[in-house]
């Protein structure tokens, strides 16, 4: 129920720059997923929005109002901490009720609201226990309940589902998303699980080393990465990134020649070197190179079955490439084939800046 604007946010801890000139606009009711590797500054960004940290420079606006120097208690934000931060001396009920008792609500309302969120998160049976009597996943749900119960205008989740088993995780995240849409609470959700990000985000913000690399819908992030980091981080397995050398007429990878339509040479505008990327599911393995594709001779290195599909690792001299193929196709290690990728499925990046060359 509030839009968030981060304006040029920088946060330093002594010599460490945790966030570096971050600009981000989050719309009212939007579900943004912050995706990045460990130490990239995700938690720091959450704490800045919650008001626990003050930015070294930059401004934070809620609904156009500057809240940069507002204390956490005046921001009406719900935060699920990465380590839950339940109050050890309070029972689960008291933990969840804590934000409400601070607002001096009457007992009946508190009871109702606590039971409502508890039933939603399936922790009703645990209300009389202490946090240390709960499993990790249960504690996590208590932390979520405590953030939800005060019906904040902004919800911040710092890796809230990392301790749940795979099945429960998918269940709870669907529930969270549904809930967020129903209440239309603006939410920021931190994860380093890219599959989770793709599944639930309205938009994904990819962060690395304190810098926002790309912000976009899951489709944009997946199919039109603006940076090799995004291509190499998102997807399972992530996109293949190959360094290609060019002498103006001929393209090579590890000295092996790469067959490509002349159009590709135009797109790279005569660079000596560039990075060619493609999604594993976009590669095909054939005994010849087909029309309008880029192709190169490869040798099968390893085949891993994943049930319906298989990950086929092939080698171009030293470079390894992963391709996702249906299980019906049969390959054997050592076999020589041609790897072909259609022109429209290629992602091209500058070798030095790692940024996308052109976006089709």
């Amino acid at each position, binding site marked *: 129920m509030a839009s968030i604007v981060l304006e040029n946010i920088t946060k330093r801890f002594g010599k460490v720059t945790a966030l570096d000139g971050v600009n981000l606009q989050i719309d009212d009711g939007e579900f943004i997923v912050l995706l990045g590797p460990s130490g990239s500054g995700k938690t720091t960004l959450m*704490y800045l929005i*919650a*008001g*626990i940290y003050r930015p070294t420079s930059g401004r934070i606006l809620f609904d156009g109002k500057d809240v940069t120097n507002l*204390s*956490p*208690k005046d*921001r009406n*934000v*719900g*935060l699920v*901490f*990465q*380590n*839950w*931060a*339940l*109050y*050890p*001396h309070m029972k689960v009920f008291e*933990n969840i009720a*804590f*934000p409400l008792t*601070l*607002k001096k609500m009457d007992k009946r309302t508190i009871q109702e609201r606590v039971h409502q969120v508890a039933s939603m998160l399936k922790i009703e049976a645990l209300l009389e226990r*202490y*946090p*240390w*009597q*709960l499993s*990790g996943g249960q*504690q996590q749900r208590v932390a979520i309940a*405590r953030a939800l119960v*005060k019906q904040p205008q902004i919800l911040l989740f710092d890796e809230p589902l990392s*301790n749940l088993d795979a099945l429960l995780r998918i269940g709870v995240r669907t529930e969270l998303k549904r809930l967020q849409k129903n209440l239309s609470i603006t939410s920021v959700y931190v994860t380093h699980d890219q599959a989770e990000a793709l599944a639930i985000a309205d938009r994904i913000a990819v962060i690395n080393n304190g810098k926002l690399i790309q912000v976009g819908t899951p489709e944009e992030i997946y199919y039109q990465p603006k940076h090799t980091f995004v291509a190499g981080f998102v997807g399972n397995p992530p996109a293949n990134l190959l360094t290609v050398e060019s002498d103006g007429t001929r393209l090579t990878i590890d000295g092996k020649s790469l067959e490509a339509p002349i159009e590709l040479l135009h797109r790279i505008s005569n660079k000596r070197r560039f990075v060619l990327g493609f999604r594993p599911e976009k590669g095909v393995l054939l005994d010849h190179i087909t029309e309008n594709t880029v192709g190169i001779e490869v040798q099968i290195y390893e085949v891993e079955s994943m049930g319906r599909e298989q990950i086929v690792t092939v080698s171009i001299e030293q470079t390894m490439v992963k391709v996702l193929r249906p299980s019906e196709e049969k390959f054997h290690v050592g076999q020589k084939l041609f790897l072909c990728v259609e022109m429209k499925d290629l992602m091209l990046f500058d070798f030095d800046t790692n940024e996308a060359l052109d976006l089709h």
Partner: protein
Amino acid sequence: MSLSDVEVRSKARQTFYSIILIALSVPVIMAFSVLVLSSFANQMVTNFDFSKVKFTLRNWQLLFQGRIAITGGLRENTFLYLLNTAVVAFGVAIVTTLVGTLSGYAISRIKFKGRKFILLMMLMLHALPGSILIVGVYFLYRLWMPTNLNALKYFSFFYVIVARAALEIPLSVWLMKGFFDLLPWEIEWSALVDGASRLKTWAKIMMPLIKPGVVAILIFGFLAGWQDIIYVRTFLIDKTLATFIESNLEAEMAYMPLLAAAATLYLLPTIFFYISSQQLLFKVYAGGIRR
């Protein structure tokens, strides 16, 4: 709410430890029993000859009537001494706890210049026995001493409390620092995000979690003040139970069973606190946070 130990200790071992512990405490328990028994007897039972020993409450009556020297008509005000002892003990407890919690919090939570140095100094100060420092402490006493006799009496209480507390403060600061170190920042922040003010966070979240520590240093401070003899004897214009018993032990006509009663009275708070706080001191909160 205590955390149970890892469940690996065997029964046999536990019994073995218990036997050793009991054996070690036998002499102490014997000494205390003799003291308490003597306070209810017409003569000391230290020679374990029970044939002439008779049960009597007379020692306690005499003690509270202040008739210490059996022959002389001199009366001592036992209640006043009890009160004095309590004042010094509570004074030391309160000063120690206040300074200990506040400095412990600061040293644990705030990164300031000289923090390490202060911690090291504290440790060194703790290593010095109070009796070594007493010359310097006495010098300061003389320096600030008021000349008015009535004022001097109050000043001497104040001075004893502060000086004695100063000896306890290093340990209590270390202890409280340890307790605050155990509290994750996230718990504090969580309360702030939940809408609590700094003061509320302190009262509702921090305090309950460090309660075992606070109670521990309260008790340590109390007992230190209660047991102290050197500082009280040097500075206090009045007597406490400790100096009272000591001065009578030296007296030629000391009636030992009566002093045994006084000593038993003097022991009571110590025993009371050790028994009542045992459980509490071992309580440590855990869970609710992922480390």
